[in-house]
């Protein structure tokens, strides 16, 4: 005990690469990735707010970026990540109460997060384009 060499050579429990990918496992990874993505999105939000504070010229630059194909793609992914992380987070808050931890519920939550986030994101964008008068 306490021997550094022994500590370095101690057996490790199986890690990610050992297990067959499962939906619930992928959802856990997705929650982490979307959380990180939202951090990048926060930077975009800050850039947008600072540009509004800075004046019309600076705002025009930000607007043209968000209006471009690249900008819209980034915003679409950000909105998806935000909604996905929110639904995934609600799932975690339910688990914190001790409910929904059985196999069936966990699988249902996973599917609800994927389908829910995708449907809601597309809906948000459709409403956005509709309000803009695209159709």
């Amino acid at each position, binding site marked *: 005990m306490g021997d550094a060499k022994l500590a370095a050579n101690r057996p490790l429990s199986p890690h990610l690469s050992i297990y067959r990918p499962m939906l619930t496992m992928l959802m856990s990874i997705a929650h*982490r990735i979307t*959380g*990180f993505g*939202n*951090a990048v999105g*926060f*930077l975009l*939000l*800050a850039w947008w*707010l*600072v540009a*509004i*504070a800075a004046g*019309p010229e600076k*705002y*025009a630059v930000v607007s043209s970026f968000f209006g471009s194909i690249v900008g819209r793609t980034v915003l679409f992914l950000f*909105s998806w990540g*935000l*909604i996905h992380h*929110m639904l995934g*987070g*609600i799932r*975690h*808050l339910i688990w*914190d109460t001790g409910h929904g931890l059985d196999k069936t519920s966990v699988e249902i939550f996973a599917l609800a997060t994927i389908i829910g986030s995708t449907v809601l994101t597309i809906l*948000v964008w459709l*409403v*956005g*384009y509709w*309000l*803009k*008068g695209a159709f």
Partner: protein
Amino acid sequence: MATALKRVRGLGSARSGTETFWRQRVTAVANIPLVIFLILAIVTHIGADYGMMRAFIARPLVALAFLALIISAAIHMRIGLKEIIEDYVHGGAKVIVILLATFFAAGVGLASIVAILKISFGS
């Protein structure tokens, strides 16, 4: 010997007990209505010109919601980023990367707050 009670009173090895766990939950709950607000605020202002956008954010209740979102999200983000870093970065580098994450959260949060205050009160 540390009994379970003594460990609880000493608030564990980090001396902060479940503070981080609980703070992540509080900010998570706060973020739900605030993120819905953000999405609605943006969707209903697609195509709005500069003056309309600025006037909207300058409204006291809107500014309040934005400030609440930014503070809550920045705290939530700092905890989440630290969590990720602790899993993948080790040793001295871990300390530096966590510091950078902290500065990032404080930086984007404060920049956003100053922007909203300027939109609300400044010229």
